[in-house]
């Protein structure tokens, strides 16, 4: 067991435990905060995958923006559900069973499949060049320019939609 593996296991454990807590705590605010922690754990996993860029992007986008958003939403709707009473609906047993079976299935396959047993080693040198290459690919017309632009438009649409949906503008009678 190399150190990297141990570190990975610790990070995985933290992430998974906090994920469990996300879905099981009674208080919704605590769930949001546990979500932050699990997302942080995921970022660290990205780092072990030599995608440091995405680790940072994860923290920026997910924790910085999305989690904040979620916390805002929680706070705005908090006084409705008083954090009392069961937070799980009636079918939680079935959901648990289903998830467990799904996980069992996945792990069975993954553990018995030879190809995925290979160790992931360090990718050689063009480490620092990954980001550059990514940037070049994103603006290359022969590359991924179009998806990039479309993603921008998507964000714009989402922005507009979010504003519109939550605005109080009275529609004029027509």
């Amino acid at each position, binding site marked *: 067991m*190399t150190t*990297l593996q141990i570190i*990975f296991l610790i990070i*995985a454990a933290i*992430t998974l435990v906090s994920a469990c807590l*996300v*879905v099981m705590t009674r208080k*919704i605010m605590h*769930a*949001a905060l546990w*979500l932050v922690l699990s*997302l942080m754990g*995921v970022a660290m*996993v*990205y780092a*072990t*995958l*030599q*995608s440091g860029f*995405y680790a940072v*992007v*994860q923290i920026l*986008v*997910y924790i910085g923006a*999305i989690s904040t958003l*979620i916390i805002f*939403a929680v706070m705005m*709707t908090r006084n*409705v559900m008083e954090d009392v009473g*069961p*937070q799980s*609906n009636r079918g*939680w047993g*079935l*959901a648990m069973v289903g*998830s*467990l079976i799904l*996980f069992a299935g*996945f792990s069975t396959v993954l*553990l018995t499949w030879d190809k*995925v047993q*290979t*160790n*992931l*080693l360090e*990718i050689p040198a063009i480490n620092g060049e*990954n980001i550059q*290459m990514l940037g070049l*690919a994103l603006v290359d017309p022969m*590359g*991924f320019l179009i*998806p*990039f632009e479309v*993603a921008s438009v998507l*964000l714009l649409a*989402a922005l507009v939609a*979010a*504003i519109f*949906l*939550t605005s109080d503008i009275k529609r004029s009678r027509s």
Partner: protein
Amino acid sequence: MIPLSWYLIFSAALFCIGLYGVLSRKNSVAILMGVELMLNSCTINLLAFWHYYVQVRQALQMSPLVFAAIIFTVAAAETAVGLALIISAYRKRQSIVAGDLDELKG
């Protein structure tokens, strides 16, 4: 040094936890949190396989990374819109329990 299967099992576990959260939480925001977990597990899967591919093929491939970028973008947009919807529904019927939104029942 970490076997690929560990990453995959980890992402599978994260996915199943997120799935459980989606299926069993009453609060709509909590459901969205579960969705975020599921999305993140998919991204881990993607990046793990990018690493494996580069390692095995010895050739640099950018499309998984671009895909991951798009995932982030989409996740953000989706969360924004979803929350906006929740708030809008909350304003309408003063409830964010997903089980109360059952007007499409048969």
